[in-house]
């Protein structure tokens, strides 16, 4: 019979889909092909999507519009273990999306991450650069309206800090070529 350590590490390997770490054991083999395991994965995926939708309101809405929400969330959690707290889940996910190649998605995720950090008194002023008017973007996501397009030779520099009046400022800058 497996020791407690072997049992639990084996289950961890199954849940994380790491077959190389799986000891040879008939019970663990029965777990790996059980309907219950599929249900656990199904519940975990549903829960992750639910929390991302609830906590990352704008980012998840934009991802759905782009058509990458389901795929990207699943891919993200396949690679990254689910942290125990919702705050960590949210901030880690947004930190990842912040580096997306899509500049609008990157800016929206960065903005939501900066909003979450507004309550952190030790956080410095955070700057988010947009290629289009962020207020129009957020309004469109809030109302499910059409998104504005990028403005050529223009950028919007948004600063977020608890020390700023209203916690946010935004400056429109013309870019010289």
């Amino acid at each position, binding site marked *: *019979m*497996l*020791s*407690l*350590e072997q*049992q*639990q*590490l084996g*289950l*961890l390997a199954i*849940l*994380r889909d790491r077959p190389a770490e799986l000891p040879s054991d008939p*019970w663990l083999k*029965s*777990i790996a092909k*059980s*309907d*219950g*395991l*599929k*249900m*656990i994965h*199904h*519940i*975990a995926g549903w*829960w992750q999507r*639910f929390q991302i939708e*609830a906590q990352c309101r704008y980012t998840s809405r934009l991802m759905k519009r782009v058509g990458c929400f389901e795929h990207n969330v699943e891919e993200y959690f396949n690679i990254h*273990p*689910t*942290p*125990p*707290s919702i*705050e*960590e889940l949210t*901030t880690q996910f947004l930190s990842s999306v912040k580096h997306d190649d899509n500049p609008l998605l990157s800016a929206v995720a960065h903005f939501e991450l900066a909003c979450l950090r507004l309550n*952190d008194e030790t956080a410095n002023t955070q700057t988010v650069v947009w290629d289009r008017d962020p207020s129009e973007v957020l309004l469109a996501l809030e109302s499910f309206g059409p998104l504005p397009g990028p403005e050529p030779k223009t950028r919007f520099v948004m600063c977020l800090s608890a020390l700023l009046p209203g916690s946010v400022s935004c400056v429109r800058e013309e870019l010289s070529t």
Partner: protein
Amino acid sequence: MASVGPQTTTRLHGPALATTYEGLGIDLLQQIVPLVDYLEIPPDSISRTQEGRTWLRPESLDEIESVTPQVGLIVHGIGLSIGSFDRWNDSYIQLLDAFFSRFTPRWHSEHLGYTTVSGENLGTMLALPRTEAMLDLICERIRLLQERYRVPFLVEHIIHLLPDAPADYTPAGFVNEITSRTGCGLILDAYNLECDRNNFNFDIAEFLDELDLGPVKELHVAGGFEGDGFMLDIHSRPTADSTLDLARTIIRQCPNLEIVTYEILKEAIPTMGYAGLCAELSRVRGAIASC
């Protein structure tokens, strides 16, 4: 030999009623507090984590304190991971320390399961193997909790989604060993029992017949839903009539049962609505009042 039915107990009044409070705000509290005797507080759910540090939200503690003249508190943990082979979750202990520094709940409790292995979150809670090795581990940890917090400690069985590991004990025998070795109390969950019956043909009557019901102090009821043939313990709906029937059966057999808790996830409350939640609390109260 003639069979003997389970002993039953009769109370002058039904057991006390509790419901979950996960920090949704004073408006909700003002609605539910007049309907219950206790609030079930999961410390994990009123905590905040940032940069690896976890603490109880001060605003949630203030809300709870504002209603403690009218209602008692019980603490029900999710994140201790009492059955992890390597260690339990120290950050949950810090949450408990902080809670106990401000409140004295009637008791605190945790699930017989584990959520982390080698510090890695499983993303689910898994049931304990019913072995001697697990008994040694868990009874020692229960003793540590009993020494640390001078209020009763209760454990609760959880639903199974995976086939059982090789075991030295029956489900009831394992729980009996825990309660008899440590003196801890027990929470029975009528909905969890129904889930296990649906998912694995678990024999509830046989379980209750073998179980020492003396340590049972609290009973949980809840409503969930089915997916792909599985009944799931996602507490999101009103309690089914069958669950309340089972609850009444259990209450009548447990001489020391004090509290029935209707459990509901905060994520489900917007759908259920405050009025729906209040109606459900009144319904559960009515169902258990005559027990």
